[in-house]
């Protein structure tokens, strides 16, 4: 019973992190129609910025620095690498995104060295709940992720900018004709996605207090998997996919026999889901026109 409860909490908090990263992928994909491969590495940059900010000994200041830094970085990446390619073939954009991801990883390694940096942001300790020992940081992660996702859903549904985002993702050309500044919306999307990635970086540091240049690579790929499972372009889909993937990972780690194959299992599930439902669970079917 305690086992089940702790697995559940771990899965949910991990799922919350995946969902937050997946939101960044899915929003950028929905609006700019590009797969931002560099998104995972923004998590890593967020982690390093927290490490730098912790020199002040103020966790809140460090987190603020990470969020602001990542937002600026996200906007810069979009302006420098993706904007020149707007209207070019999707393959070209995808390869550039991979280049950007690679660039950031090597840059981080050059600046901070290849050895991981240890950084303890804040020790929340642990509590006993229903007989299971639960890390408070997991609960904090879960709470923050829930709040962030609720706020984001409300933002997209009820604000002018949020509705403009939906409009752009549904029909770029028509949105432009209605007077929406598409470039501005894309910039805002990148900013929001990067801020979420910075928060995800924080939560990773709360789980395991070390940051290295590849911190974001695997979570990034997995969160993208989550976004695809949920249906890329769909905000509730990203949340669903993230939580689902987090639960699968947490359960798989608990079963000793299959624990080493966790990554393989997650990716196999991705391939299976794509085979059965190529647009994910909540993705819209898009018929291609000539």
């Amino acid at each position, binding site marked *: 019973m305690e086992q089940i409860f702790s697995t559940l909490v771990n899965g949910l908090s991990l799922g919350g992190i995946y969902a937050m990263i997946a939101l960044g992928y899915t929003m950028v994909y929905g609006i700019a129609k590009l797969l931002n491969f560099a998104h995972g590495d923004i998590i890593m940059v967020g982690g390093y910025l927290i490490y730098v900010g912790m020199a002040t000994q103020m966790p809140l200041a460090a987190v603020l620095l990470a969020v602001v830094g990542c937002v600026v970085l996200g906007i810069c990446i979009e302006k420098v690498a993706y904007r020149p390619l707007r209207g070019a073939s999707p393959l070209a954009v995808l390869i550039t995104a991979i280049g950007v991801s690679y660039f950031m990883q090597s840059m981080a390694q050059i600046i901070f060295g290849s050895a991981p940096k240890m950084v303890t942001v804040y020790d929340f300790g642990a509590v006993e709940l229903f007989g299971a020992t639960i890390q408070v940081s997991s609960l904090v992660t879960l709470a923050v992720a829930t709040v962030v996702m609720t706020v984001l859903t409300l933002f997209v549904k009820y604000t002018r900018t949020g509705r403009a985002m939906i409009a752009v993702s549904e029909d770029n050309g028509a949105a432009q004709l209605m007077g929406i500044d598409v470039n501005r919306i894309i910039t805002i999307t990148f900013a929001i996605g990067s801020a979420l990635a910075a928060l995800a970086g924080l939560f990773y540091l709360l789980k395991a207090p070390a940051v290295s240049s590849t911190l974001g690579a695997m979570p990034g790929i997995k969160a993208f998997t989550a976004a695809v499972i949920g249906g890329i372009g769909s905000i509730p889909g990203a949340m669903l996919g993230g939580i689902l993937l987090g639960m699968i990972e947490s359960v798989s780690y608990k079963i000793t026999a299959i624990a080493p194959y966790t990554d393989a299992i997650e990716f196999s599930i991705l391939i299976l889901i*794509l085979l059965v439902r190529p647009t994910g669970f909540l993705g819209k079917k898009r018929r291609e026109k000539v």
Partner: protein
Amino acid sequence: MKIGNFKLRHYINYIVIGILTLVLGTMSLTGTRFDNSLLFLLEKVAISIILAVSLSLVVGFLGELSLGHAGFMCVGAYLGGKVATLLVPMLGNGPLTFLIALIAGAGAAAICGIIIGIPALRLRGDYLAIVTLAFGEIVKSLFQNSSDDSFGGSLGLETPRYDKHYLFILAFLLVLVTLAVIQNLIRSKHGRAITAIRDNEIAALASGTNVTKYKLLAFTLSAAFAGVAGVLYSYSNYTVQSAKFGYNYSIEILVMVVLGGMGSINGSILAAALITWLNTKLATVLTGDLAVLQNLLYALILIVIVIYNNAPALKGFRDKYNLGALAEKLIKHDPARVKDDKAKWDVVPTKISMDEILSVDLVPQDHDQGGSK
């Protein structure tokens, strides 16, 4: 130069590689002892060329991004290495063992290619890229967690040693085989079907191209040759470790294809040789923390080349100062290179704006080219 139907530029790559193999091979067989590091470099160059040319079939000609090429190579390396290890006590460490290992490795990789090719039929672009990436990670993880007596687990698989003075000759002969198969495929009607799918899948389908067949064909063939490269790798390296075949290696192969120019076989060959040579040179210069500068270089190559070649805003600049003009001239009439057609298709707007409706000429002009889009 043209003698009858024979066009020199169509065969220039066979001739150059063939002469190189012949000269170095004769020297090696007649007793010239080459430096071990040179032999190793030659093997690595051959492996890279096979990888780049086979990936080029999927990325450059079929127009789908595969991020799991190292995964196919991994399957080939493990299966080929294992078969060779099992056969050496029975058949000896000769060309026959090598051939059987080669068939086993290429066959296993080809089967994986079919398995990945099937979702590829339903998925496109970004989704497919992520499936191939996932495949690469699955393969890596499976071999990493294999038991010690099957595939050596995380320690890696020990493979038989082969005389280095012969291996590079075999490697270059395999490069020629790869070229013969892939280049001839691309220049045949099947190749035109594959490039037609790249340029416009729906139009290709409407004109009666069997999209399913050709996509599977391209994927399977590309995977099979990645498997061949894998078997060569296992022979050249003595040990096969799954960690080597990660995402980073797939990207390195992709860099070769992009640097060489997508849709150009000769470009891929040159870029593969250049990058492999550069890798070995840089590995001696950049040690320790500096080694990462190499990755930085790849990243910059990818970004700069792709933006330069594809940015709509730079189109005027590209036409004016065509840096590749010389290369273009050399391969101008190469049917393998459907020159600039991609660019033409891409500027055709999917939705016609108001301005264009108002500015349409009643006399049909260049617009015809976009007619089928």
